[in-house]
């Protein structure tokens, strides 16, 4: 993975930079000792590591603003970092950049039940928000698997999803407002406790911008009342096709479950060995469907789902009879990654989305690719919204295995795009899929996206080298190629 060439002149000024940062962020908020900055050398994509030039952990918006202004004025790059759980390398440090961590922004500022929202600092964990409101029966809906550790600021940067995003939406559908600091140190507020501000939806484009547009220092999210009840059904099928068809049939019947997850045989066996969730071992694919709402609705829908499953050749069906059992059903799915980690020295997790109808076809071709690359793949998906998480098993100690796994992963993502899907459903592009952007977007598509970046950060100082394979200068992106003089479009009807 080729990163932008570090600026030797900036690195040469490291001592001065550290001193200047210490003048802004007092105490232990600036970290420059090598053994201490090592903790920041990677995020959840651990195959890539790089020591940051220096780590800065401000505590207030004013400090963030002053740090960014200083870096802006002195041409120093910034890599924003939340909890460091991201899976695409979005927080991978740069050798000539300040890693700006938001971990000290860890307070919930306001709980407002009347307006059904929470105002919080960005370093609070996803689950921490639910924890703060569940005594009153409320929760924050998006639930990425890392929710115990990942921060809400990072969720906004990545537009995180989760098991329940099928019914309750992604982060972008649940964020009401942010305060953010631009690269030049200016502070702006987008949205608030109200909906749809009118004007250009900058909040919408900031969400999912992977730390390229600004540093978020405050967040307002909407909270929902917990459903009265939730029950999960386990369904086993004799083939992956049957399972895939069942997913499509449930959606086609007009049912949008709270969650609908699927696992293939390798993933089922790995998780059952690990957490003993009670999964059947004699099926080729397993679906977990959760229905939530009032009891009357849940009972009604479960009956319909079971009937659909029977038509789709389900050979196994089990309904959770208690809250404990429901959580047990989920424990397998939620532990699928570490479970797979137990059966292989290493794995990489991919994250494409495909049209639901292509599920069986993609799995078949993925197995062919598996044979071709000589590496095993276990599959867990957010089946309801077609979001695949193929886990490619490899051994990093084996010469060339990582490269093989990455090539396999890239082939899977190309396959996703080929069947009408996309490169990443919820993990982000980061550095991991950066060089595949061209399979989905034309040069013009990407340039138009980068022009948005230019409106926020014309100097490309904020998290450069991420998301986009080619860094174009903003001056170059702004140029217009026009041809005057000719009277065009003789065919366009005019009046």
């Amino acid at each position: 993975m080729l990163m932008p060439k570090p600026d030797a002149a900036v690195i040469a000024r490291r001592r001065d930079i550290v001193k200047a940062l210490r003048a802004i962020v007092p105490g232990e908020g600036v970290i420059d000792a090598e053994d201490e900055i090592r903790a920041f050398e990677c995020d959840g994509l651990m195959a890539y590591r790089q020591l940051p030039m220096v780590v800065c952990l401000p505590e207030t918006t004013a400090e963030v603003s002053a740090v960014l202004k200083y870096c802006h004025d002195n041409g120093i790059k910034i890599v924003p970092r939340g909890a460091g759980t991201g899976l695409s390398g979005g927080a991978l440090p740069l050798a000539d950049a300040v890693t700006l961590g938001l971990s000290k922004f860890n307070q919930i500022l306001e709980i407002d039940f009347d307006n059904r929202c929470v105002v919080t600092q960005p370093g609070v964990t996803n689950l921490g928000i639910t924890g703060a409101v569940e005594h009153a029966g409320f929760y924050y809906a998006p639930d990425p698997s890392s929710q115990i550790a990942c921060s809400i600021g990072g969720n906004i940067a990545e537009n995180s999803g989760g098991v329940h995003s099928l019914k309750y939406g992604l982060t972008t559908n649940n964020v009401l407002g942010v305060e953010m600091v631009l690269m030049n140190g200016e502070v702006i507020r987008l949205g608030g406790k109200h909906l749809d501000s009118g004007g250009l939806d900058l909040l919408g484009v900031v969400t999912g911008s992977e730390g390229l547009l600004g540093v978020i220092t405050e967040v307002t999210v909407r909270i929902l009342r917990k459903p009265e009840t939730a029950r999960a059904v386990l369904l086993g099928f004799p083939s992956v096709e049957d399972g895939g068809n069942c997913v499509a049939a449930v959606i086609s019947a007009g049912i949008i479950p709270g969650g609908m997850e699927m696992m293939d045989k390798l993933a089922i066996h790995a998780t059952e060995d690990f957490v003993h969730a009670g999964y059947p071992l004699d099926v080729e694919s397993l679906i977990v469907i959760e229905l939530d709402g009032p009891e009357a609705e849940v009972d009604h829908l479960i009956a319909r789902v079971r009937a659909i499953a029977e038509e789709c050749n389900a050979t196994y069906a089990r309904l959770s009879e208690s809250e404990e059992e429901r959580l047990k059903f989920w424990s397998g799915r939620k532990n699928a990654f570490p479970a797979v980690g137990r059966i292989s020295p290493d794995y990489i997790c991919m994250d494409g989305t495909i049209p639901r109808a292509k599920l069986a076809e993609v799995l078949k071709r993925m197995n062919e690719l598996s044979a071709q690359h000589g590496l095993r793949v276990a599959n867990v998906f957010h089946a309801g919204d077609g979001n695949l998480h193929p886990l490619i098993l490899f051994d990093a100690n084996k010469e060339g295995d990582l490269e093989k796994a990455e090539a396999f992963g890239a082939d899977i993502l190309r396959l996703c795009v080929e069947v009408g899907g996309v490169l990443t459903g919820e993990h982000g592009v980061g550095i991991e899929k950066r060089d595949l952007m061209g399979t989905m977007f034309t040069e013009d598509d990407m340039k138009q996206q980068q022009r948005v970046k230019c409106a926020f950060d014309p100097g490309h100082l904020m998290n450069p080298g991420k998301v986009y394979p080619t860094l174009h200068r903003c001056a170059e992106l702004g140029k217009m190629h026009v041809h005057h003089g000719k009277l065009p479009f003789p065919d366009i009807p005019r009046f």
Partner: protein
Amino acid sequence: MADTLRPETDAQLLDAIKWAAAEKTPLEVVGGGSKRAFGRPMQTAATLDLSALSGIETYEPHELFMTVRPSTPMAEIEAALAEKGQHLAFEPPDLGPLLGGAAGVGTIGGAVATNIAGPRRVKEGAARDHVLGFHAVSGRGEVFKSGGTVVKNVTGFDLSKLMAGSFGTLAAMSSVTLKVLPAPEKIRTVLIRWRIDGAYDHAAIQAMSRGLGSSYDVSGAAYLPAAVAGLSAVDYIRASGDGVTAFRLEGPGPSVEHRTASLRQELAPYGEIEELHTQNSRTLWREVRDVQAFAGRDDLPFLWKLSVPPASGSKTAFRILEQLRGEVLYDWGGGLIWLALQSVADAGAGIVRRFVAEVGGHATLMRAPANIRAAIPVFQPLKGAEANVVKGVKEGFDPSGVLNPGRMYEGI
């Protein structure tokens, strides 16, 4: 020079904008034209009429998406979806009559460009939340796309959000892909008729907060003060002679019945509880969605759309109405205030914006004569740093300012 360009193909659309960009000729971008009076009036040399770019390109009910050309009439889309038991969950209003035009001429391009949403906004989001992707020609005269046809997609910046609500100032879409969802099987409305003295607005806001904060999955919460309720086509509401608070419940039959009963019980302390079934519910929520009470009202020439924290809705409206004469309708549990004002200097902008700012929100001038819309900001005025970003975004898409220049902000 041609006054109106009416491209019939993507290639012609590209040619038209390329030409305008080269010649720096500002264009007014128009689809069905039903929202032409929404936004600032413009000085444009020509009109880019997209009405020929119409029709459904792809509809895949099982994949829950539909790709359409920008000028496809809403009515055509709704009919195609209804055939498969689906709908656009953001419930796009028909604002034609409200803005002084005809009903039923709105297009999907206009709905997206203005990022509108009906009462279901509180549960399902606005147009912005339902655009999965699009193809467009930027003001630079370049074809580009963003997004795709799947819901879960974080590949690159989410330009769909920017396009929604950009009033045609960034690019002209040649197609847009929308998320579609199963339409509810059954609809009920629970009503509260107040039996306390005085104005009920504050109590209504409280009750709506309780309903929306319940686990009964309320998909609409509106308060119709007496003057508005008196105009309803639903007999019970019109005859009530008083303000009415309405809660909508939708979903599978058994679920709706259960939730209706539970909500009735929860709201009983507030007043007299009544219930509307499917047909009357549809009528009522269409009236709320399209703000029919304030359509064709010569006595109330100015119309504001106020977006505020829901619990501050009545307080905000009361403060404004202490100083200005008009009527209100509350939707989104109080978070959306339709404020219709009698004739007043500056459309009441100074007072309206002051009280909205106090609670933290946004005020948009939806309806006013062109000279007023030219003189005072239609959208919430931008502050320093944000104004620079907005300017920068506009320049990134349309550096020559040829697409709807000045429609949203003066000089942008």
